[in-house]
């Protein structure tokens, strides 16, 4: 009997009436104002706007002029637990997620120690059951010690609730090792999430190889370091009939490799990160270490390709790759700084501001892609449907805010969108039937 895939700390089931909000759930075909009543943590009633009154003991949330969406699911976050709690922990990381409108996240295993054995996973899940504000799923390592040499005990880890496996932060360099993992997958299941990078091509690169890196004299990470590995791994997955998920796709050649594999029937999915959808290597000209992440911000042509791939479904979902680092770790010269940007608190607002408002992507598509990531790991998709557990986020699409001005819920502040004025703000998040976040300035009116 396998353990449940998601863990969070128990909290009170919500009894809330969200009145007159514009409810949008592309999967349910809902795109109109409604009253939505949540009773005992579940969606009890969806009714015409203004028709419902909060029952005894329930709160009324004024949704007038706001949007009620299915809450987002992030299949790629770094919660830095165990061992790196000066960057983030399960409490602060899931607070940041809830503040960004997420109702579930999947945590990466490149911690200290790495999550590569049953005792570590068990302890981590126990901690999540005490601290996590929203449900968290875990993807332990593919290889022991994340060294790429020997498989982890994937069967036991699956029994303990592993939703998949990944050596994220590092590629599985050996094609033979990936093949073994894909063979073993037939027995244990669990998607293999792959950080695709050929270290022989990326070398000591610290940013995208292109015009800007040539100018700055900073060693470049060529786009082909990602795309050649994707092509290789898709070929292996196709041969073994295995299932892979490509993390944080950043380059036009990578999109082509995934589209090609999909057209051949390979079971491959891909994710796009808000920073790759919005920013380019032009941002690195300032050598601001918040703009340093792996894979790096690439050219405008690459960015366009990622946007197009998200639109046409070549890339299946949005994933933040939320990667907190402490201030002193990032307050160093660019080449010395660790890779990573935080992203949970800004993902929706950044995409809304930079892609939805200019008309590049429809809001419904962004909502669909931001809620799709969990299903790739076997998790349930949040839906606004009567009888479902409430996983909802209420957003004000007109609210403007400056990133970082009021601080962050995350323990770290290395956000690539810091200082940007964004439009669209999460006001309330209900995750797994409980209120997980309320924006401070957002007043709730009792019944």
């Amino acid at each position: 009997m396998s353990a449940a895939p998601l863990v969070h700390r128990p909290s009170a089931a919500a009894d809330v009436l969200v009145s007159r909000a514009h409810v949008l759930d592309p999967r349910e075909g809902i795109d109109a104002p409604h009253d939505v009543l949540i009773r005992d943590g579940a969606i009890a009633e969806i009714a015409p706007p203004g028709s419902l009154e909060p029952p005894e003991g329930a709160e009324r949330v004024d949704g007038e002029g706001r949007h009620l969406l299915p809450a987002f699911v992030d299949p790629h976050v770094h919660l830095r637990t165990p061992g790196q709690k000066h960057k983030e922990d399960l409490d602060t990381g899931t607070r940041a997620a809830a503040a960004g409108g997420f109702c579930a996240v999947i945590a990466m295993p490149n911690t200290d120690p790495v999550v590569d054995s049953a005792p570590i996973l068990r302890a981590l899940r126990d901690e999540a059951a005490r601290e996590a504000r929203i449900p968290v799923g875990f993807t332990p390592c593919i290889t022991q010690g994340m060294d790429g040499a020997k498989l982890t005990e994937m069967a036991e880890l699956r029994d303990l609730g592993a939703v998949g496996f990944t050596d994220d932060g590092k590629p599985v360099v050996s094609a033979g090792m990936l093949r073994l993992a894909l063979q073993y997958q037939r027995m244990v299941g669990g998607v293999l999430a792959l950080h695709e990078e050929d270290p022989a091509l990326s070398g000591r690169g610290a940013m995208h190889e292109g015009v800007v890196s040539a100018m700055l004299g900073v060693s470049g990470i060529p786009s082909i370091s990602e795309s050649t590995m994707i092509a290789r791994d898709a070929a292996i997955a196709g041969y073994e009939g295995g299932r892979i998920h490509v993390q944080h796709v950043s380059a036009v050649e990578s999109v082509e490799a995934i589209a090609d594999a999909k057209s051949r029937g390979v079971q491959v999915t891909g994710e796009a990160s808000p920073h790759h959808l919005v920013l380019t290597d032009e941002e690195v000209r300032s050598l601001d270490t918040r703009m340093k992440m792996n894979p790096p911000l690439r050219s405008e042509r690459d960015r366009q390709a990622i946007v197009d791939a998200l639109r046409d479904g070549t890339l299946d979902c949005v994933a933040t790759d939320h990667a907190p680092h402490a201030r002193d770790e990032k307050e160093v010269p660019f080449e010395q700084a660790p890779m990573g940007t935080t992203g949970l608190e800004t993902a929706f607002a950044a995409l809304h501001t930079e892609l939805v408002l200019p008309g590049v992507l429809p809001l419904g598509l962004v909502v669909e892609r931001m809620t799709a990531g969990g299903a790739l790991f076997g998790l349930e998709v949040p839906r606004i449907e009567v009888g479902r557990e409430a996983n909802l986020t209420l957003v004000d699409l007109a609210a403007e805010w400056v990133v970082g001005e009021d601080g962050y819920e995350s323990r770290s502040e290395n956000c690539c969108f810091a200082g940007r004025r964004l439009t669209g703000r999460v006001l309330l998040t209900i995750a797994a039937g409980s209120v997980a976040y309320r924006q401070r300035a957002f007043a709730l009116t009792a019944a």
Partner: protein
Amino acid sequence: MTRRHLISVERDLDRERIERIVSLAGSFEEVAHREIKKVPALRGRTVLNLFYEASTRTRSSFELAAKRLSADVVNFAASGSSVEKGESLKDTVLTLSAHKPDVVCVRTPWAGAADLVAKWSGASVVNAGDGKHEHPTQALLDVYTLVRKLGALDGAKIWIVGDVLHSRVARSNILAFQRMGASVTLAGPPTLIPRGIENLGCDVRYDLDELRDADVVYALRMQNERIDQPYLPTLREYAERFQINGKRLHPRQVLMHPGPVNRGIELSGEVVDSPQAVITAQVEGGVVVRMAVLYELLEGARSPEGGGTRATTAGARDPQLA
């Protein structure tokens, strides 16, 4: 008052400021030929040399420049210091800033570090080399050397030959030469030419077949630390195709090199010793140009902006009379 800096050619040096510094350097030239090689222009000012990379030549050039202007000089080298005990750049800069330097001249192996020093120190910052990014005083001394040799750079054809990939000198010089009106061609093996560099508006060649076109040949140092890496099959083959030697260098051409020279690799011994070579003039120019940079940062800032005003006050504050 906002502190002024010299961190990159790209941001900090337009043609006007380059010309101002070159002309100021010319006025310091005479000091080097005095018996007492010192003027009191920066008396009471403190110049801190903060060097995270081994450098005898650049550091001593900055030191000499500061001393000839009567500034107090503190040299801080990363080796044998708190840096080896694990102190961060930020903490080192905050600590040294407590000594209230007026100028910090900083060299590090990291692009952008001079900007961080400027952010943390409160002093004027001169970038003495940040990783493979920029080395603006080298570009200034090269422009100075060429202006003295050729009169002006307008229309000059300058070839920069060798390891452009790892060269901060190349990056700063491409920009400075272009801003002074020269056209720049880069030549070297494709493994040592960074992808995208042609976007700076320079020509890229993988041979020296048309080197005769050049008015100036600027050879880059083949850095020993690169030899272990697979950028080149052998140094022999590099020298065979890209060495500047007597057969390739025309008597009309000016030969430059940032030093230290690897004789027999990027340059043959004969051209180093030839009359076309201005390599020692570059070193000499380095001191007066750095004097000009320090003076311009500390005293130039006092003059109100605007050419007319500066012209009328310049005489009163002639550095040699100060």
